[in-house]
């Protein structure tokens, strides 16, 4: 009898609680009409940023490509006459990218960055292959002041590659084999 009373009490209080919720405002966010502001570090479409001088930041070091768990970044390195390296072409296959953000973490120059844009779904899978011109943007992204080539890695008024203050000589990659 005791337990039956308990059951009835539980039943009634449960029904009552649910009924009260009927009069609360729904908390659902109506997506296409309301877009919740995302935190800056939310991971969406990837961009290649420029340094404050307006030059490409990417030094084509292949670190992002190496760390990418799904191998969706590919590029070809090239060097300008002044010794500054850049990517001759740079390609991200967003159809494979899982937006994990590892590339951003690996990048030594803050070149590759993830943005908060997540609305780039399409029906043609081939159009997800983004080339360098699709990825490059005209701003610095999250890291405003960073400027790698101001201090090293390029021939400047102060000297050649490897001759700046605190800079080591470039490694001969051919001697670096395992």
């Amino acid at each position, binding site marked *: 009898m005791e337990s039956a009373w308990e059951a009835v009490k539980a039943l009634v209080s449960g029904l009552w609680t*649910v009924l009260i919720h009927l009069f609360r405002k729904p908390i659902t966010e109506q997506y296409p009409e309301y877009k919740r502001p995302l935190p800056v570090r939310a991971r969406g479409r990837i961009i290649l940023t420029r340094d404050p001088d307006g030059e490409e930041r990417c030094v084509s070091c292949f670190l992002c490509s190496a760390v990418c768990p799904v191998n969706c970044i590919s590029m070809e390195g090239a060097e300008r006459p002044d010794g500054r390296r850049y990517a001759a072409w740079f390609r991200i296959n967003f159809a494979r990218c899982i937006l994990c953000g590892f590339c951003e973490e690996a990048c030594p120059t803050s070149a590759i960055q993830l943005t908060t844009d997540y609305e780039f779904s399409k029906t043609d899978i081939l159009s997800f292959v983004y080339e360098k011109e699709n990825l490059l943007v005209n701003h610095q992204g999250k890291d405003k002041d960073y400027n790698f080539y101001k201090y090293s890695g390029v021939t400047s008024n102060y000297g050649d590659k490897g001759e700046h203050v605190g800079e080591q000589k470039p490694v001969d990659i051919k001697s670096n084999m395992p």
Partner: protein
Amino acid sequence: MLLWIAGFLILLVKLSIILGVVLFLAGYLVWVERKFLARLQIRYGPNRAGPYGLLQPLADIVKMITKEDTVPEGADRAFFLLAPAVVAATALLMFSVVPLGRDITVWGRRVPMVITDLNIGLLFVFAMSSLSVYGVALGGWASNSKYGLLGGIRGAAQMISYELSLGLSLIPIVMLAHSFSMVDIVQAQQKYPFILFQPVAFLIFVISAMAESKRIPFDLPEAENELVAGYHTEYSGMRFGLFFLGEYVHIMVFGGILAVLFLGGWRGPILPPIVWLMIKIFLVALFMIWVRGTLPRLRYDQLMALGWKVLIPLALINILVTGAVGLMMN
């Protein structure tokens, strides 16, 4: 002869009107359920197809009809294809004995506002609701899937157990009304609805009816998180839709029967009788959805214990008490 044809025509008209209205309402009951349940869970529910998602049932039907109708390999084809129809048809047939209003007169003929006034209307309802067990059990068995089979077995066990308490809970009503006919039962509630005399029977009936229509908290035959979808796991397209339809027509039928047996049927002040019946059915449906939004699924042993150890003894005692009181009153 002419009279016979006229009677037949009237019957056909009544049948098609009721079939159309019931199917339409069943479709919109799905919408009501989704909306109301959503609000209980502080969500919005469907609100994209049309204003307030009102076209959602249509969109669902179009989707189901255009889907592929698959039959799993190794399934018992005939039974597999037939089972959903059994569920939907038995649910619809139950509606044929629910009186919808006062008798009306068309061209000098008295037309009862019920498809058939069977003198064993109540038994007919039970027969049909027992038959729908076949749809569930056969559908589960014929799909050649373990989930379907388990769902079907559970369905059969549950529905047979709760049929007993369902039937027993209504015997006091029959004792009060001195008739098995639904029309007579409504007549008998001229002064007071039977819920005032038989609150216990009312409770037992509501619980058993929820179990019969396999609704949460008695949805063990479907139990999504154990059995995928239970007896209709293997069904797709409109055949799945028929099971779905059967469930919602079932809700309406039980709403209607509940209204007829306990709430005075179509009786009510001011508004026309059919509106009153609709309101009562609707309130019962809302209550079922409310319960669905509140209670978790019972465990299998709890289900059986509730049915056999609580509801059936309670119903028997209720019959005895009603009989004793009836004797003393005489």
